[in-house]
């Protein structure tokens, strides 16, 4: 049977764009499986990258300037002292925990950056904004919304003088 007379000839550009518009967004199951497996490879690679970064790059404590922050004799058991380290925009807290040891942490809550305060009765740090609690001995979250521990300030004692010497993330 002969072709109808009114059939339009195929334009030349069609050779370069052979896929019809309706088929342009069509994805077969095979393509989806390949795409998902590629995504799986990327996710596995990113997980390995995160592990490598955590193992060899972020575990090193951040060195900082050595700054005198107070005298140990001025902080009684259960007492605390506020200071700023390493810059004036970084509030920190030095406290004497129940075990008698001095420890210092960033005062910025790891949830939404409110200032934490020391609660010596419970030997913990408390964030009043969202009722978050942190252990005074380790800085780890013990209650409320925070999931990450407070950054610890490394301390050095010279006689009675306490120096801040760096920040561990």
């Amino acid at each position, binding site marked *: 049977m002969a072709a109808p007379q009114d059939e339009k000839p195929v334009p030349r550009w069609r050779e370069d764009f052979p896929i019809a518009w309706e088929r342009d967004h069509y994805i077969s199951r095979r393509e989806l*499986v390949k795409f998902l497996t590629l995504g799986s490879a990327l996710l*596995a690679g990113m*997980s390995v990258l995160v*592990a490598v970064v955590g*193992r060899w790059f972020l575990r090193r404590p951040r060195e900082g300037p050595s700054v005198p922050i107070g005298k140990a004799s001025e902080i009684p058991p259960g007492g605390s002292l506020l200071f700023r380290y390493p810059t004036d925009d970084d509030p920190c807290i030095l406290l004497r925990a129940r075990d008698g040891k001095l420890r210092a942490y960033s005062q910025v809550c790891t949830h939404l950056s409110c200032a934490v305060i020391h609660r010596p009765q419970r030997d913990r740090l408390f964030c009043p904004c969202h009722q978050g609690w942190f252990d005074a001995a380790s800085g780890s979250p013990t209650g409320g919304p925070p999931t990450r521990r407070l950054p610890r300030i490394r301390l050095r004692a010279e006689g009675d003088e306490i120096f801040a010497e760096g920040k561990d993330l």
Partner: protein
Amino acid sequence: MRSSPKERTSEVGTPRQGLPLFTAICVLIGTLVVIQLWLLAAALDALLGGHTAVLFPAAAASAVLFLVNAGLLLHALNFDRRLRDRDHDAGA
């Protein structure tokens, strides 16, 4: 010894078996990818929290899930290839 066409069909599978096979593999791989996403999110959270001890187990688990996904993909591709070979043999 050359097997009969009926036996070969049962060994290779049919195009009708391909549809549920690929659907099942899609669902399986999708589920494993979601688990990998969760692992990555948990690893990032642990990294920011300073709990670096869990990072390598999470990476290893993610790598194992990827290997499972790659195995499923290879199985699906082999299924396709066997079907093509069978059709080619039947045509010839």
